[in-house]
C-alpha cells in the first residue's frame, strides 16, 4: 500500500464514523424539517403517502396570521429571556467574575464560585418542578411569605406570568456567565495590570481601561450565547408552567413541541416554527463568524 493510500484510508477510518452519525442525526433532520414545513404532512407514513402534497408557504402564512397570535407571544417571550441575559445575567456575571478574579475578597473565592455555579449542573426539570411548588398555588412558599404581610392574602393568577419564569432563569444561569468571564479575566496577563498599578492606576481605571477592553469580544460572544440559550430554553418552562396560563409563558421550542406532540398534532405548524428556529440559529452562526473575525486577536 502506498503512503498516500494509507493516509487516505486512515482518514476515512477516523472521520467516517463521526461524519455518518452526525449527518444522519443532525444535518439531515435539519434539511428534512425545512422540507416538511413546505408540505401538509401531519403524521403517518411519509413515503408513498398519497395525501401528502406540497403546500408552499401556507403553514408559515397561517403561523404569522392566525388570530390568537401564539407565535408572536412565544417569540416575545424568547426575546424577554434574551433581555434577562443581556441586561441581568451578563452584567451580574461580569461583576461577580471581576470580584473573584481581582481577589477583592481574601477567603472563600473557590467556595463562592462553586456555589453560584451550582444550579447550572442541575436538571432544569428538577428546578422547574421545585419552583412550581415554591411559586404557584395555595400551598406555595410565595403565599406563605405574602401571608406574613397580609394574613388575608389569597392565591390569584399572576397578571404577569412571565415574571416568575424570568426570575428563575436569572437565578439559574447567572453563574454560567460568571464562569465564562472569570476564565477570560484570568487569561489577562497579570504583568499588564501590575504595571498599571505601579503607574498609579486605581482599581476603577484598571477595570475600565484594561479588563473591559480585553473582554469586549467575550461580551459579544456571551450575547450570542444568550440568544442561542433562549432558543434552547424548554425543560425549565415545561416543568414550571407547561407554557400556561393560556399559553402566555410559551417560548418557540415549547410552542413547537406542544403543536406537534400534545393534543391533536399539527406537524405543519410545528415544522414551520422549527424552521424559524433554524433560521435564527443560522443568523447567529453568521454573526459569530463575523464577530470572531473582528475580535480574533482579542479573544485568543
Amino acid at each position, binding site marked *: 500500500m502506498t503512503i498516500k493510500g494509507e493516509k487516505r484510508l486512515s482518514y476515512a477510518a*477516523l472521520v467516517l464514523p463521526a461524519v455518518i452519525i452526525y449527518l444522519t442525526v*443532525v444535518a439531515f433532520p435539519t434539511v428534512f424539517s425545512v422540507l416538511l414545513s413546505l408540505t401538509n404532512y401531519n403524521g403517518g407514513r411519509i413515503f408513498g403517502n398519497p395525501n401528502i402534497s406540497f403546500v408552499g408557504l401556507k403553514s408559515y402564512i397561517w403561523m404569522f396570521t392566525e388570530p390568537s397570535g401564539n407565535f408572536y407571544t412565544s417569540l416575545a417571550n424568547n426575546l424577554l429571556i434574551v433581555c434577562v441575559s443581556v441586561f441581568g445575567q451578563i452584567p451580574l456575571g461580569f461583576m461577580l467574575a471581576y470580584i473573584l478574579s481581582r*481577589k*477583592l475578597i481574601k477567603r472563600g473565592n473557590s467556595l463562592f464560585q462553586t456555589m453560584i455555579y*451550582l444550579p447550572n449542573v442541575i436538571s432544569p426539570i428538577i428546578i422547574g418542578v421545585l419552583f*412550581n411548588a415554591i411559586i404557584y398555588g395555595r400551598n406555595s412558599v410565595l403565599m406563605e411569605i405574602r401571608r406574613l404581610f397580609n394574613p388575608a392574602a389569597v392565591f390569584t393568577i399572576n397578571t404577569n406570568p412571565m415574571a416568575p419564569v424570568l426570575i428563575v432563569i436569572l437565578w439559574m444561569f447567572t453563574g454560567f456567565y460568571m464562569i465564562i468571564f472569570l476564565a477570560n479575566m484570568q487569561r489577562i496577563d497579570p504583568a499588564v495590570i501590575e504595571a498599571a498599578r505601579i503607574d498609579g492606576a486605581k482599581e476603577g481605571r484598571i477595570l475600565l481601561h484594561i479588563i473591559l477592553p480585553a473582554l469586549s469580544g467575550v461580551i459579544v460572544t456571551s450575547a450570542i450565547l444568550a440568544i442561542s440559550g433562549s432558543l434552547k430554553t424548554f425543560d425549565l418552562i415545561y416543568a414550571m408552567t407547561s407554557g400556561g396560563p393560556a399559553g402566555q409563558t410559551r417560548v418557540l421550542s415549547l410552542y413547537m413541541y406542544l403543536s406537534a406532540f400534545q393534543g391533536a398534532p399539527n406537524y405543519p405548524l410545528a415544522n414551520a416554527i422549527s424552521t424559524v428556529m*433554524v433560521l435564527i440559529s443560522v443568523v447567529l452562526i453568521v454573526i459569530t463568524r463575523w464577530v470572531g473575525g473582528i475580535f480574533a486577536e482579542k479573544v485568543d
Partner: protein
Amino acid sequence: MDNRNISVVTKVVVYVVMIAFTVLTVYPIFWLVLQSFKTSQVYMTTNKLSFPVNWYVGNYKFVWNQVGFSNFFMNSVIYSVVTVAAVVALANMAGFAFAKLRFKITKLLHGLFIVGILLTLQSILIPLFLMVNAAGLYNTRLGVLIPYIGLGLPMGVYLCADFAKSIHDELLESARIDGARYLRTFVSIVFPMCAPVSVTLAIITFTGTWNEFILMNLMTAGDKYKAIPAAVGRFAGALGSDYGKLFTSLTVALIPILIFYALFRNQITKGVAAGAVKG
C-alpha cells in the same frame, strides 16, 4: 498582590454581595432537602419555611421502593456512560484527522460540525422522531443513544480538533519514521496526549446527557427506558399536591449530580469555559 488600598467600605460591600448571591443561589436547594423530611400534611399545615420538627424518612422509603428509582438511575447511567464513551472516541478520531491529515474535503466536513454547535435540538425534534420510528428504534435505548451521540459530536469535534492542532508535527513525523501507521500513531500517541481535552469533553457531555429530558422522554414510552429527568417530570404530575413525596423525589434525583459536581467541580467549570468561549 494585596498591598492595594481597598477601602473598608468596598470590602464590606463586596463581601455582602458575594454572600448574598451565594445564599440566594443555594437556599432553594437547601429548602427542598429540608422539606423532603416532612409529611405532606405537616408541610401544608405548618410554616413552609420552617425546619422539620420530626424528621420523617417515610418519603424516602416510598420513593425508593414504590417509584422504582433504581431503574431510572440505571437508565441515566447507561445513557450517560455510553454517550460519553462514544463521543470521546469518535470526536478524538475525527478531530485528529481534521487537524493533522488534511484533505481538501476537511474544510467542508469540519465546517459542518462547527455549524452544529449553535443548532438547537428542538428544531430537529420532529424529523428525529419520525426517523427513529421509521428505523424501528422507538422505545429502545438505541433510539435515544444514537441521537445523543450525534448531538454531542459538534462540540466534541471542535474541542478535539482545536487541541490536536497544538500537537507538534515533528512528533508525528518521528513516529512515522519509526514505521508507525496513522492509525497506530493515533491510538498510541495522539489519543493519550489528548487526555486533557478528553476529560473536559467527557464532563461536558456527561452533565448534558444526564440532565437531558425532551429527547429521551419523546423517544420512549412507559418507564422501562426512561431516565431520571423524565421520572421527575412524571411524578410532578402524578404526585401533584403530595408535597412530601414530590420534594423527596426531587431530592433523590438531585443527589447523583450533586456528588458528581462535588467531585469534578473544577473540571466542570473549566470545561464550560473552554466550550463556550469560542463556541
